[in-house]
């Protein structure tokens, strides 16, 4: 089976296994990347009449993010704080869930929230008053804002949080089912909120996100009587992309399921030695 290969002009073809094709077709602006030459395939420099030279790189595009994520993780571990990366589509109920979580846990745990938002402080404002340490990251920077939090952004916000005084830090990511799954920020646990209004097929459409998480909170269950949603189909689809995932059905609006979620969170802390030791 050949490897799929798409060019900037929209042409698509495959390479035979182990057999680079002569790379003499035109690219974006019509210039040949490498002039036609005998056996001028990938990795072969003999066909470059212009003296072009290939330099092997083999570097992960997310390498810098991953390095800073590791640095964040080291800081979290040194401070003894467990970090949860909370993700969802926009409007799935992350902030309402966090209010409920703060209500339940603020008396038992020292909590921090790192709030990612494209432009506003609206979400952070809704979380004030519970005694939690809150830091806001606005991701807007000219192009309408980044669609996710990445490790450098989280790192830049850490000086504004009293890490050593926290047991649990929840990172509320930007609402988006695609990008946040690609960028680890150094978290110990990944969780997401899925609202039943989103449709049963979402795990199949966004498998990277649904595969990436340890837990899915199935939110807005108070709306079940008003919807045609088939929750069994959702669970089937979810387990097709993430067989080991844990689910908890909740309603952040009514509070149903919130104790189970808070118990799960607390257990994550106590099963993590760096926090449980305190």
């Amino acid at each position, binding site marked *: 089976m050949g490897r799929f290969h798409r060019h900037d002009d929209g042409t698509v073809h495959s390479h035979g296994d182990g057999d680079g094709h002569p790379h003499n077709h035109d690219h974006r602006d019509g210039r040949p*990347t490498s002039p036609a030459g005998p056996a001028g395939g*990938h990795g072969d420099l003999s066909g470059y009449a212009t003296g072009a030279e290939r330099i092997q790189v083999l570097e992960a595009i997310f390498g810098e993010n991953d390095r800073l994520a590791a640095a964040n993780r080291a800081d979290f571990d040194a401070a003894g704080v467990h970090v949860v990366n909370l993700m969802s589509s926009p409007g799935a109920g992350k902030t309402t869930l966090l209010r409920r979580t703060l209500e339940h846990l603020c008396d038992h745990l020292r909590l921090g929230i790192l709030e990612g938002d494209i432009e506003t402080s609206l979400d952070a404002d809704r979380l004030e008053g519970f005694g939690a340490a809150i830091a806001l990251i606005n991701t807007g920077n000219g192009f309408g804002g980044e669609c996710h939090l990445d490790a450098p952004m989280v790192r830049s916000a850490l000086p504004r949080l009293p890490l050593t005084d926290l047991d649990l830090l929840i990172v509320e990511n930007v609402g988006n089912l695609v990008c946040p799954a690609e*960028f680890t920020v150094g978290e110990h646990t990944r969780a997401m909120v899925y609202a039943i209004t989103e449709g049963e097929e979402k795990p199949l459409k966004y498998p990277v996100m649904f595969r990436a998480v340890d837990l899915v909170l199935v939110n807005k269950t108070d709306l079940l009587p008003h919807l045609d949603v088939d929750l069994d189909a959702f669970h089937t689809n979810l387990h097709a992309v993430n067989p080991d995932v844990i689910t908890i059905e909740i309603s952040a609006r009514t509070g149903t399921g919130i104790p189970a979620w808070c118990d799960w969170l607390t257990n994550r802390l106590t099963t993590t030695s760096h926090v449980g030791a305190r």
Partner: protein
Amino acid sequence: MHELSLCTSVAEIVTRHAAGRHVVAVHLQVGQLRHVVPETLTFCWEIATRQTPLAEATLDIDHVPVRIECRTCQAHHILDTPLLHCPTCAGHDLHLVTGQELHVTSIEVDDTPTPPDHPAAQPQE
């Protein structure tokens, strides 16, 4: 959706490896599980490299299919949908062999002098 920030990272990697030489082409491997749209990536590359020493460098994107090995029945398959189950036994315990790549594999450089009036070689944050 984050193709622009991907391109910024690619430009940083390429600039570092090119060490001042003129870059003709950049070769990427992108796994099909990566949610990267090739046309968007190419478009963002033009934006991210405009008026930089990389403005003439083309992106060559090698799309890597999703290959799995089933831990239950040991079958190997290439999946053409993101439904991660074994086509042979319908099992879900899979080893993802390929499909998550996101690498700059190589660059092509030549000795064309970079115009001296180019702005700084470092891509903007």
